């Protein structure tokens, strides 16, 4: 942890990793989308609509991974007070919100042919929607203060409170859903998955996670530059 705490060293490594990660991500997206769209079987029940799953499911996974990253970075910021941890948490939030949005939109696109409506209060969709709300709250909170450190610390506490609450929210939504669920609605995923469907799913998951890495580095660089600029301007003003 502390080995990477020096921003100069961190960005030297990150800048070296960035092009590799970008190429990996592009390659995984190309191959994953090829398999997902052309070289995988249609579902016996869902037809070609199942192909939306390959875009949708990994996005939801990446969205949750972003939240975990945000909470862990927030915790490290509170413990070690290192600015890179704060920047990492801030960097992860909009990326996670973006993945959450992709997941919601693709879920809705999938729901239209499957359910005959753009939105159903399905337990999974509802949980993801609430995750989106948590991201919005976090982003609003960290940007609501004049002092960036203050915003970062408040955000870190909120991310941790949210992390404790996510399982409770998920559980309560499942509970709510079983109480109110109309019996005929098709579940999004069957219990098992055919191997030829698993390959594109895993490729796409790898693509999303490497894209997450690429965007994290890019956002960290820009957030760091912003902080640096602020510091230099303040220093120049107090000369």
């Amino acid at each position, binding site marked *: 942890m502390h080995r990477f705490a020096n921003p100069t060293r961190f960005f030297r490594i990150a800048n070296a990793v960035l092009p590799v990660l970008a190429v990996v991500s592009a390659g995984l997206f190309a191959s994953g989308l090829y398999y997902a769209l052309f070289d995988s079987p249609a579902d016996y029940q869902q037809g070609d609509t199942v192909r939306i799953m390959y875009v949708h499911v990994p996005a939801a996974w990446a969205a949750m991974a972003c939240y975990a990253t945000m909470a862990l970075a927030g915790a490290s910021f*509170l413990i070690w007070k290192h600015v890179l941890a704060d920047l990492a948490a801030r960097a992860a939030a909009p990326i996670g919100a973006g993945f959450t949005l992709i997941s919601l939109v693709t879920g809705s696109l999938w729901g239209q042919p499957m359910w005959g409506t753009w939105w159903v209060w399905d337990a999974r969709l509802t949980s993801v929607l*609430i995750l989106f*709300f*948590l991201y*919005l*709250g*976090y982003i*609003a*909170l960290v940007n*609501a*203060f004049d002092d960036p*450190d*203050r915003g970062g*610390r*408040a955000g*870190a*506490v*909120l991310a*941790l*409170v*949210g992390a*404790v*609450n996510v399982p*409770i*929210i998920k*559980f*309560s*939504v499942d*509970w*709510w859903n079983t*109480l109110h669920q109309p019996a005929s609605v098709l579940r999004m995923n069957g219990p098992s998955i055919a191997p030829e469907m698993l390959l594109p799913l895993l490729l796409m998951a790898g693509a999303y996670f490497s894209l997450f890495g690429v965007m994290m580095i890019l956002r960290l660089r820009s957030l760091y530059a912003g902080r640096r600029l602020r510091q230099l301007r303040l220093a120049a003003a107090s000369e």
Partner: protein
Amino acid sequence: MSPFLAVIARDLRLARRQGTDIAMTLAFFVVVVALFPLGLGPTPDLLARIAPAVLWITALLAAMLSFDRLFQQDSEDGGLDQLVLSGLPLALLALAKACAHWLTTGLPMLVLAPVLAISLNLAPDSYATLVATLALGTPVVSLFGVVGAALVVGARRAGVLVALIVLPLLIPVLIFAVSAIEAAGAGLPVRVHLLFLGAILAGAIPLAPFAAGAALRQALD
């Protein structure tokens, strides 16, 4: 008097002196509940069907309006520094604030809700459960409110922000409370719903003050 009780006594005394603050929160509760029959039409069946949700959602919204009393004024007039310098651990300070908030907001709503429920034609079997869910749920609302209010000390647009960050966290309370009341109305057992609410409260009592204390610590720096 211990500092913990002194903080509660101070907030209660302030609330009594600035009585309009509480009255406004409760008036909001009443007015918004009254809007539903006006918007939906006075059909007794429909109102009875939505009464649990209307009462709980309105109670949550009214509570959101009351959170700015918790720390905002104290932070603006320097009172927060004095509270911190009482030497009371910040988690206990937060707990005292939550107690005072519940006594001045949750408790009055608990008393008002059954009366409003009559106007919404709530099923007769549901009243005891309504009160039970409020008794278990509103303390959770106060505890989460203290966390949210501590997080937004010094923020721009703090009032809207606190609602945005606290409401999603209160979704489980809403779900279990409303399903309990609905179950009671349908003659189904309510025990398990209430147990879940109780479990959330039991978790929130130690954890929320801890988180709020951490948030206050950050707010001072």
